[in-house]
């Protein structure tokens, strides 16, 4: 099973998804992220999905759940780098990802977190 690495940069956890997400790797990512949040006390999570080309309702729900989990650790989630086609798919699926903030790219995502963490 492929794992998604979680990088800690300052008070932010950085997750860049660069594999085809399978159900079990998604579950693993959730567990890893929860453990990392508990261990580091990070104040923000950036999920980079630039490389994700295909989403389904499961992945959409996964993103919302990561947002909810992070909030329990008082961390804010920012989803960055979504492709236009992915955004259209998610809206057609009726998923507006409540509780997750979005930004165009990683840089803007960091700005967003920097502004709210201070």
């Amino acid at each position: 099973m492929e794992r998604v690495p979680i990088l800690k940069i300052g008070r932010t956890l950085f997750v860049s998804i660069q594999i085809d997400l399978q159900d079990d790797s998604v579950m693993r990512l959730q567990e890893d992220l929860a453990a990392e949040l508990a261990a580091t006390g990070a104040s923000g999570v950036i999920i980079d999905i630039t490389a994700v080309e295909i989403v389904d309702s499961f992945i959409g729900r996964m993103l919302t759940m990561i947002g909810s989990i992070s909030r329990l650790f008082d961390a804010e989630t920012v989803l960055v780098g979504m492709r236009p086609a992915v955004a259209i798919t998610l809206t057609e699926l009726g998923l507006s990802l409540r509780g997750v903030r979005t930004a165009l790219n990683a840089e803007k995502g960091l700005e967003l977190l920097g502004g709210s963490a201070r």
Partner: protein
Amino acid sequence: MEMDNSLGRMAAYLRDHQDKVVGRWCELVAAGIRGRSSAVELRAELEDLYTLVLRVMAGADEQAAGELRAALDEMSRSRARNGFTPRETALGVFSLKDAVYELIAGEADLIPEYLSFSRMIDDLGLHTFQTYAAAREKIIADQAASMLELSTPVVRLWDGIIAVPLVGTLDSARTQLVTEKLLETLVATGADHAVLDITGVPTVDTEVAQHLLKTVSAARLLGAECIVCGIRPQVAQTIVSLGIEFGDIVTKATLADALHYALTRSGLKVTTADRA
């Protein structure tokens, strides 16, 4: 077999009277289309058709039927493109019957021949009409496609602020195109704010509102904030009486207000310059 023979006899008869029939046919068609084709052109076109019709009737060669249909197709397509009415196009074929009938009206012994000839011309006339309708539909589809392309510009208002002036009715095909273009521009320019101007949208019903909301939430997923502006008084009344909720989407009366709001949100301020 009986029919083939009568058609064959008719073909021989028509070949003998070619000049007279084609001459009258040209007159009838020219009267129908009121001089939109020159007489020489028309004559050449009809003579070709006449020869083909005779070849088909005589049943001598197999390619004649295909050639005749191709010639009729070409004629109806060009008529459809040049704005001839369906009646004028169909008359072009049907008036051959009148021309022939005038010639043989006195000769009672040719009635069975005339009937099979008439049946064949009816068939050709229907074929012409079908091609005409298909050509018109293609023209309409092409126009719709070019309208779709024309009507969706995405313009840059300021650094980080883009605008989509929506003109015309929003259906699902157009919404999809607009959404795709908007999102691509957001990615390409890195804009944070998108202004959707609906001044040119004639009516906003629940369906249009639904489409707008979809576009806005797709843009939000990319991290951009959308502002809807250009809501006219009548449109505002319709929206309220239909009970449409725009939720937390920012709406402004005019494009100017929307731009001002977006500038403020980007941390910019518009002031009057000091004139020294």
